[in-house]
């Protein structure tokens, strides 16, 4: 009797998991985790301009999601490109010996094409990088074995790259550092020296 019972149980165990599709349920209706807000800027409609008003400059936002690269490493490349014209940025990136440079370059070229095709930009060289930054992507966690039966977590990180191209030529001082010429610096120093108060003097 026991034997028969055991057989039955084993047969059930074998059959059930084969017949049930479990993974398909999990895959269907999964929510997209991609960033959405940045691309919403492409949908804003500006009010019509009056006659004689200065022509409003076009812009385009673009993103590349889930790049298998470090967010921190990509950030340096994103910073490098800021405030450059598109042509200059592409030139610089093609000589940058980093894996992330290729991703950024591709993203900028894609955005440039979008600008010409969809956002009424006439000349593709007449664009500059107004915004360029990175974002956290998906993180897949792995396991690493440690001594004494302990575990360690390994984080396989992905990152996003966002770029906004604007029509026109870039500003002279993108970071607003207000760099002074040597003569201006000297003048400032002289002024400062003359203004100082010498104690116990007339």
């Amino acid at each position, binding site marked *: 009797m026991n034997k028969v019972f055991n057989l039955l149980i084993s047969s059930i165990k074998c059959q059930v998991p084969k017949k049930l*599709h*479990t*993974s*398909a349920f999990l*895959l269907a209706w999964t929510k997209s985790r991609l960033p959405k807000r940045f691309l919403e800027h492409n*949908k*804003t*409609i*500006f*009010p*019509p*301009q009056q*006659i004689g008003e200065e*022509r*409003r*400059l*076009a812009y385009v936002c673009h993103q*590349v*999601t*889930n*790049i*298998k690269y470090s967010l921190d490493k990509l950030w340096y490349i994103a910073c490098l490109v800021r405030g450059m014209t598109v042509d200059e940025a592409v030139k610089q990136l093609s000589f940058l010996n980093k894996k992330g440079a290729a991703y950024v370059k591709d993203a900028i070229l894609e955005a440039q094409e979008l600008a*010409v095709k969809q*956002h*009424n930009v*006439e*000349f*593709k060289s007449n664009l500059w990088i107004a915004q360029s930054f990175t974002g956290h*992507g*998906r993180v*897949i966690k*792995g*396991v*690493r*074995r*440690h001594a004494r039966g302990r575990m360690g977590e*390994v984080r*396989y990180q*992905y990152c996003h790259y966002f770029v906004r191209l604007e029509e026109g030529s870039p500003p002279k001082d993108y970071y607003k550092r207000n760099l002074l010429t040597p003569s201006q610096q000297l003048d400032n120093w002289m002024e400062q020296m003359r203004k100082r108060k010498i104690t116990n003097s007339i």
Partner: protein
Amino acid sequence: MSTSFLTKVGVLRLIPVSGYVQASRTTTSKHFNPKFKKLRAQKYMKLDLPNFNEDINQLPKEKIRQKMKERGLLPPRPWVERPFYISATGGVFEAYVPPEGDGKASIVSATRAKQTVQLLEKKSKSMLAIRKIKSFEEEFDSKQFPSFAQDVYVKAHESLVNGDKMALRQYVTEKAYPEFRHNSHMKTIHWKFLDSLEPPRVVHARCTDIISKDNIFGQVTVRFHTRQQLAVYDRFGRLIHGSEILAKDVLEYVVFEKHLSNLYGVWRIHDKIIPDWMPPKEPSRLTRVKPEPEPEPEPEPETVPAITDNKESQVIADK
């Protein structure tokens, strides 16, 4: 010996090397003994990292099949059903041919004379069609209809300008809907109906049955000669077509359609008749760089003497 060799190498290291030298690392985090490299690698659990940017459409069929099998997914069922909705016809039947130079005062012309004769022939058909429409819709009056049509015409355009899709459906048939909305996405449209230069009038009417004899559609063409104002702005508010201050004379032949056998059918805009003598369109204000013409593929030089001969002889041998 060994010491002397080492000293020699040491001296060599100090010699300045001219030209490009690849940067070498002096410090390294690598373990000095590669013997345990494999064992250290085994400490990490093996993981297949997903490629989130993989384009499934680019993959070969076998690869897709393999991936679906791995995940236990069933192939999607082919969707064979095609939904369609018959409350409008797909075109204009026996379209009205507008007389040449209409709207301008030039009645004397050879083509114009010929067209007037043809018009008289067609008028009887229009009368029959109107009689048929009246059998379904008792209040129909070809004198009253144009003013009603003009109201529909104005409302359709206004709902397009306001971006009111639901309202637009009431004034426009399923066929005309995409034509109305074409190129209006992300644009600001300013449109004004100023006044009629000539009172609108019915110029043409036709009836057709579709599928069964009782399923009848009526089409009425109305001629509008009006003054309108149009200005189209793109997403950034720059003017791309028309003008805010200029009014233009517009001559249009608009086809209205109604599903007569449908109790709840309404007269809606169906199409616009564009005559061949229409003056060419105003060029777009948007300018763009002309794409370079694709280089024509060079004709390959005919240098296939020996191989083709061999093939031919093989074919003959096979036969």
